[in-house]
């Protein structure tokens, strides 16, 4: 009985992700891209959830882990000759590196995790707004360096010609794998301890929990997952600039998480897929939707306004998120 309840908590998000992956296969080519993009966004939001949902500390900085993951995976899969013509100032180590798709994703996760660990050691002592602003500072610094230091990347130019290997299979499996890791973590001793500490820091410390260490663990794990998601993202888009993994993405992913419900994995998945879905619908509507009798055609630019209205309304009137921060729990009738 209890096992069913626990299983359903993981099963619901996994099934939803799988459903999106399968359904997307039956759509037209341009819509397929939207579906795969939604799955990658869900991966990023789940990574974000692993830290924010369990620790209760806001982080604006996770997109910097997505960014380093994306550039790590991108730079190691573009052929060497092309890379040097694109950015001649690269360190020889980076210029010479050329690995396969799977290795590049692992590398993205490793780089994201290592970066998160380094940042986390000092920053995880902070809470509340100080933590929010400090992680935001990390985002600004990461972007500033990636954009201007041409020995580690293409700088302000576009990193293009990255192999577009994020298929439906990869996007779906990637998102599900990350969801499973997130779930395993939240059920583990470490996840429970961190949740306890976010509910009542003083009591948790009294019970001998080292909050700093637990937060650092969650931060590193979620940084690695974010880096992995960045790898998926760059292999989906085929090209990337530093501005694509900056403020807009940081805000949108955080909004997705809060809209779904910060405190549950189910919330992260629902929020990411719902907002992505609304966005794709509006994107299609800007191109014109055939309605049989006539065509519904909304002017360009209404998409962002509508998206903003939808997000603001949900946040104002469902402040705990659409799921209320609860997991889906099935119980057999007694």
């Amino acid at each position, binding site marked *: 009985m209890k096992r069913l309840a626990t299983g359903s908590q993981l099963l619901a998000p996994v099934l939803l992700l799988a459903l999106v992956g399968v359904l997307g296969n039956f759509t037209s080519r341009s819509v397929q891209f939207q579906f795969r993009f939604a799955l990658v966004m869900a991966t990023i939001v789940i990574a974000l959830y692993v830290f*924010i949902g369990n620790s209760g500390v*806001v982080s604006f900085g996770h997109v910097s882990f997505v960014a380093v993951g994306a550039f790590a995976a991108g730079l190691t899969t573009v052929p060497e000759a092309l890379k040097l013509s694109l950015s001649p100032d690269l360190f020889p180590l980076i210029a010479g590196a050329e690995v396969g798709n799977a290795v590049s994703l692992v590398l993205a996760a490793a780089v994201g995790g290592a970066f998160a660990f380094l940042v986390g050691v*000092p*920053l*995880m*002592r*902070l*809470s*509340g*707004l*100080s933590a*929010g*602003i*400090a992680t*935001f*500072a*990390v985002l*600004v*610094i990461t*972007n*500033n*360096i990636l*954009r*201007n230091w041409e020995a580690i990347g293409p700088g302000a130019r576009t990193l293009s010609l990255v192999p577009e290997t994020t298929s439906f299979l990869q996007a779906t499996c990637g998102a599900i794998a990350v969801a499973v890791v997130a779930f395993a973590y939240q059920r583990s001793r470490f996840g429970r301890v961190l949740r306890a500490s976010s509910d009542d*820091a003083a009591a948790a*410390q009294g019970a001998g929990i*080292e*909050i*700093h260490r637990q*937060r650092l663990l969650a931060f590193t794990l979620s940084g690695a997952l974010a880096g992995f998601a960045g790898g998926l993202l760059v292999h989906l888009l085929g090209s990337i600039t530093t501005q694509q993994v900056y403020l807009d993405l940081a*805000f949108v992913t*955080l*909004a997705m998480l*809060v809209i779904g419900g*910060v405190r549950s994995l189910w919330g992260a998945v629902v929020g990411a897929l719902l907002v992505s879905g609304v966005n794709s619908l509006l994107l299609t509507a800007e191109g014109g939707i055939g309605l049989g009798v006539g065509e519904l055609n909304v*002017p360009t*630019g*209404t998409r*962002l*306004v509508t*998206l*903003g*209205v939808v*997000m*603001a309304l949900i*946040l*104002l*009137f469902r*402040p*705990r998120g659409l799921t209320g921060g609860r997991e889906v729990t099935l119980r057999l009738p007694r």
Partner: protein
Amino acid sequence: MTSALQTLIDATALGSIYALVAMGIGLVFGVMRLVNFAHGELITAGAYALALTNHLPLAVSLAACFAVVIGLVLAMDVAYRPLRTTTPTTMLVTTFAVSFLLQAVALLAFGARGQNVGVLPELNRAVSIGDVRVRWVTLVSIAVGAVLLGATAAVLGRTDIGLQMRAAAMDPRTAQLLGVRASTVIRFAFVMAGILAASATVLLTVQRPLVTPSYGFQLVIPALVGVVVGGMDRLVSATLGGFAIGFAAAVLGDVLPADGRVFLDTALFLLVILVLLVRPSGLFSRSRAAWERL
């Protein structure tokens, strides 16, 4: 020596504008515990009002700017009402969403290319004081900043509503029990923040006349960082923090070598992280309550 003095004057002027923005953010935070990301869009709205009334007399332009900003800030007061009972994270993300929405509206209405504000062009003329040449707007910014900060301090310190605002900021529940009306106090704080924002808009558009949808957002981010670095628990420390970040940005911009200037943000935000690590509750904060040892 001359150039050092020049730098200091310019830095003080930029710091004054940031202080006005920071004080507005701090006022609202004090009575509502809400960090209003959309504060920047007040400035954007004011700047568009100035741009659209460019051809009209100056008084009309200024009136339009203040009217639009105060109208928008009152709308925010109403819109944020459901947030009063939610968590800080939700508040933060919601105001961010409102900011995003307003930027999208500006993009739809006015396009991405930007519009020019030509109000008070004579303020861009330079004046020589000894060896130093400064633009009028620099001096006016410092003066207006000082006057408005003084006026705000007077309102908070010497009027009934100011007393109520301080009481509500210190302990909202007790203040309410003693008959302070939360809605009145919050609305008043929003209006004061609006007046400060509109004044900052006029000063800012003289120096940076090109208004785009993200005009105010680009300003509010550093101001907000300044507020937190200064310390949110007291209005004075929040305002000083805003001043400090503007000042530091201007000085760093002058001091850094030319080829290192692209890394200005890195230097500035590393400084921010350092300050937060050493004094998590703020550089100018007095309280040790938020001082956490994990």
